[in-house]
């Protein structure tokens, strides 16, 4: 019975997709109420089922094998076997709660946010439901091929939703870029999967875990497998060098940015590492690489976030940066800390994105922070919620982000393999994070400027990358309904209290709850397996580290206040010449341009030249030459084409007869 419920929870969003997909095909826009019921309802029921199963099957879920349900067989060839079978265990139930829980909140929010998009309302919810369906396969599948099905499935939804306004060229380009960049990662992931299959003989988690339980594999093999798999994570979770698609992905509607490009899909790489803990924990060198890639990604993208003027772009780079923190944690073997940050980040970043969506909506689709300011007076509750999220992400004590980030920084510091450098990367990122997020808050909600006035005056100003391009009547703020504010309040509460599942050990003198949880439910206890990766530090050092990170959080807040509130600075217009460093940051270190110049353009040129020279001038021309030698045959052939039907019939028959004659006659 509960097996059926699990399958239902996973497939309900698919039914929602089908229903809304069909509704989107109607000539007249479908009833928004009906679409909302299918869209929100399917995810809500799915969420409720997961709550129920968590309690009903509690003992099975936290056990090693988990609670599993088989739906139907999929691929079964030779020794390879992969089914549509699901595994609800300690790790996947954690993810399922986040995916369906936050997913549901964002679905509700979307009913308000997309209200004006009448002709595309059903299509939007169809894609969103399909996304939840794919994401549930990613986290709940019991084998790597099924994970990969979800992995590529969420990539497809991401592609479709980034390019949701497909008539806008930049949206279509961004969607394509996201899909192809992800495919680069997927290529690595596929090879990692193959290596793992060759090693363990299976792609089912239980059999892989069984193999690692029974055999010890040397680190050099696992390093290669882990690195290949991590290439996949670089794509999906936007790490250097494959992060470039995520900022552009902001071309999609804001709820999509919150759900897919912040809270759930982009964390798939982190989840995958936890899922394959025996591989990654057995690969210390690869793990070190992962930690440093995470650290550098965190710093680089935080540097870029400093000077962005589009509110969503700031949050996008912030997401890349926070994902970097998570990989830093996974790389140093602190899986509990990484998953902890995954969760808290899902809360506060979803809140930030949905909040920015509310701002954008209220301001008739204005995204440029230079055109904002003083919104606090108009939307107090929204401003307060934004402050909550900002305090949470900046690492000011008490709110969720503080606990998870602090845990990561401490674990990085104690890492034996270059931990001090890692800590420094994370520490610098923390200063920058606090600065850019409060810069965003001051520019948007405070300063002496007034967004409403700016909006009413400046109709001529470019709309930045406005995702919808409404030609709205600029008169006052758009009121925000309960379906917009409700989910924000819930996320606000979660952002405040979400951190208490992982109180630091120096306060409680116990292993933080969430760390203990993942030690228990993962097939290999990360704290034990990675114990030798860490040096012991004194409690006083730990206190010092914590105080230092609290200090920089306030430093960032103060600096942002000083520049943007006290001195009332507004970032310069695009055309203004910036100082060297700001110029670099503002232009994202020209990474996109570099990729285009050294990778994309040459490849395209090679493709064009191969066609024009190798294919046409060399291969095909030499065949033509051969053809000219047999010109006689050619001219003869042309004469055959008389165009009279009986002639052709005659040729066919006589040809057959001749062949038959040769064959029969020749053999006797």
């Amino acid at each position: 019975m509960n097996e059926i419920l699990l399958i239902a929870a996973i497939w309900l969003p698919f039914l929602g997709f089908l229903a809304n997909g069909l509704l989107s095909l109607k000539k007249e826009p479908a009833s928004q109420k009906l679409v909302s019921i299918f869209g929100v309802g399917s995810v809500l029921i799915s969420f409720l089922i997961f709550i129920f199963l968590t309690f009903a099957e509690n003992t099975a879920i936290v056990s090693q094998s988990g609670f599993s349900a088989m739906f139907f067989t999929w691929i079964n060839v030779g020794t390879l076997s992969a089914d549509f079978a699901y595994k609800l265990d300690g790790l996947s139930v954690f993810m399922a709660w986040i995916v369906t829980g936050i997913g549901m909140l964002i679905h509700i929010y979307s009913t308000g946010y997309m209200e004006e998009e009448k002709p595309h309302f059903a299509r939007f919810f169809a894609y969103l439901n399909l996304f939840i369906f794919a994401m549930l396969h990613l986290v709940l599948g019991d084998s790597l091929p099924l994970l990969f099905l979800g992995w590529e499935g969420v990539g497809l939804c991401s592609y479709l939703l980034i390019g949701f306004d497909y008539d806008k060229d930049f949206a279509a380009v961004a969607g394509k870029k996201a899909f192809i960049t992800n495919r680069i990662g997927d290529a690595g992931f596929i090879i990692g999967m193959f290596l793992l299959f060759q090693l363990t003989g299976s792609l089912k988690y239980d059999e892989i875990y069984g193999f690692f339980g029974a055999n010890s594999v040397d680190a050099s093999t696992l390093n290669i497998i882990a690195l290949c798999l991590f290439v996949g994570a670089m794509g999906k979770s936007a790490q250097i060098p494959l992060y470039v698609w995520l900022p552009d992905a902001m071309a999609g509607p804001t709820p999509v940015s919150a759900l897919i490009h912040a809270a759930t899909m982009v964390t798939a790489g982190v989840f995958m590492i936890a899922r394959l803990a025996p591989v990654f924990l057995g690969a210390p060198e690869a793990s070190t690489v992962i930690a440093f890639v995470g650290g550098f990604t965190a710093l680089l993208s935080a540097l870029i976030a400093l000077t962005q003027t589009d509110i969503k772009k700031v949050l996008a780079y912030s997401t890349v940066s926070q994902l970097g923190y998570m990989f830093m944690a996974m790389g140093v073997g602190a899986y509990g800390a990484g998953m902890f940050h995954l969760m808290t980040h899902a809360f506060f970043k979803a809140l930030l994105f949905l909040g920015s969506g509310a701002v954008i909506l209220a301001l008739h689709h204005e995204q440029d922070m230079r055109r904002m300011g003083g919104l606090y007076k108009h939307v107090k509750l929204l401003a307060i919620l934004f402050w909550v999220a900002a305090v949470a992400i900046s690492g000011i004590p008490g709110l969720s982000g503080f606990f998870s980030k602090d845990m990561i920084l401490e674990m990085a510091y104690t890492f034996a393999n270059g931990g001090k450098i890692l800590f420094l990367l994370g520490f610098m990122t923390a200063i920058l994070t606090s600065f850019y997020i409060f810069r965003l808050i001051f520019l948007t909600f405070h300063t002496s400027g007034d967004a409403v006035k700016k909006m009413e005056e400046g109709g001529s100003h470019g709309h930045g990358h406005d995702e919808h391009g409404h030609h709205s009547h600029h008169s006052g703020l758009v009121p925000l309904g309960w379906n917009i504010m409700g989910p924000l309040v819930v996320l606000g509460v979660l952002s405040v209290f979400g951190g208490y599942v992982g109180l630091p050990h120096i306060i409680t003198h116990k292993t933080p709850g969430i760390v203990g949880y993942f030690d228990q439910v993962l097939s290999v206890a990360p704290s034990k397996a990675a114990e030798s990766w860490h040096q012991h530090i004194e409690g006083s050092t730990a206190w010092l580290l914590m105080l230092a990170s609290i200090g920089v959080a306030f430093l960032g807040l103060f600096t942002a206040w000083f520049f943007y509130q006290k001195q009332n600075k507004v970032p310069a217009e695009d055309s203004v010449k910036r100082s060297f460093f700001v110029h670099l940051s503002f232009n994202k270190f020209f990474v996109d341009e570099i990729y285009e110049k050294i990778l994309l353009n040459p490849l395209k040129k090679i493709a064009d030249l191969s066609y024009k020279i190798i294919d046409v001038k060399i291969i095909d021309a030499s065949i033509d030459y051969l053809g000219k030698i047999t010109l006689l045959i050619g001219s003869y052939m042309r004469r055959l084409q008389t165009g009279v039907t009986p002639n052709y019939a005659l040729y066919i028959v006589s040809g057959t007869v001749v062949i038959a004659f040769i064959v029969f006659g020749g053999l006797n």
Partner: protein
Amino acid sequence: MLTLSILAPIVAVIIIGLLPASKSEKPSKTMMYISMAASLISMAASFIAASGFSSVNPDFQLTEVWFTSVENGINWSFALDGLSLGLYILTAVLFPIGIYYSYVSFETQSAQGEAIRRQKLFYSSLLILETSVLGVFAAQNLIVFYVFWELMLVPMVLLIGIWGGKNKKYATIKFFLYTFGGSVFLIFGIIAILYYQTQSKLSFDLTDNLVMSLSQFPHAVKVYLFWAFIISFLIKIPVFPVHTWLPHAHTEAPTVGSVILAGVLLKMGTYGVVRFSLPFFPLVSQEYADLFMVIGVIGIIYGAWLAWAQTDIKKLVAYSSVSHMGYIVLGMFSGNIIGLTGAYMQMINHGISTGLLFLLVGIIYDRTHTREIDDYGGLAKLSPLYAIIFMIATLSSVGLPGTNGFVGEFLILLGTFLANKTAAVLAVSGVIFGAVYMLHLYKQVFFGEPSEKLLKIKEKISLNMTFKEVLLTVPFIVMIFWLGVKPGLLLDTTDASLKKILNTTVQAELAEKNLLKSVKAANIKTEIKKTEEGL
């Protein structure tokens, strides 16, 4: 039932031939009905035959004998095994779709004031083509196979040469010369078998007997024979560097020609490899496996890159075929069941996804009369349903999990990986390039604001798909997802036969070892004799 499905089209050709000549330039319903009836009967008969198929039996079954000729070893008998069943059904399903589409297309053209000419010959060619392809897949005898293999050439040459585009003459001659050149090698190989055979009576029936007698040929002869067979197949597939007939043939062929060409004719080449090259010359195939892996990898990457460089939609899809066929070559020579199964699945997949792509290109071409990618843009806004169906075909083509394309590609890559890591790693890059060219195409054609050219055309004729056109794409869409989530539907039928083919390799290896042993033993014996004599 097999007889019925092979002969029904021929009967229809005779009936169409008996129809009074008409000078009408309107699409002829009568001819369409006759052709449709024949191809639907053929399809139904093949389904009925398939329902009696036993998937545990690796050998030919459902055998139907026309006449036998024991003396010269040519039995006109037809049968299916796990290797041919899927392709046979695919053929039987594609033809009615192609025939009905042609009629719908004639209607669209006629509505735009174009004259429809030579319909008698058109339908006859299609029907003869159907018989010959079905015959190729159901032939149980090498000679019979060859007869149908050659027969196919005539209607295909007519289809491209008469109803083709601007450069039809050039494309036809190229297609003919290439294919005919390949066939010369094939017939040479067949004659050589006759020359080298030692048995008093050699049967060309595709039984273990033939395999046995071939295995006794001297190794050098086997190598020559192997190349004679495979050159013919490689041209038909086609692989790099003998692929240049394909872009011309595809671009110039009428839509139905492209659909059939991509859907089943190319598979005759890969089918030939698995049917003949692998079991006839197992050790030689193994010897050259690395070479073919190289050919496959080059095909995948080269085809994908060249697809990216195209400005003509049909040419782009044609080069994507070269890339996809590269995967099949890899899988066929992987030497393990995972790779070989993947290759077989990909033969069917390519027929479905590329068949659908060509059909869709044809549907829009009937209205716009342009294949230049630059003339398009913003089509998603003008024809949303068409955009969705094209997206499904695209996803199948790039091998997204959940579609059929993924299963085939994944099995091939995994099978290849187990056989040859370097080849597999290089081939995986095809996963990236496949997305590059297909999404490039999709973006240029469907996204952005509608192009002026399309807006102009829209004033004259609706760009939305008609109900009939949508109906034609339904079987493809169903198969894309069905095989994507339940590939067992196909793979269960092929498993036993494919395993048997791989088994011939194992047996041949064993035989070779035993042969070596017996040679050694003989040598030792002579030496002993010599020593004894010396004493």
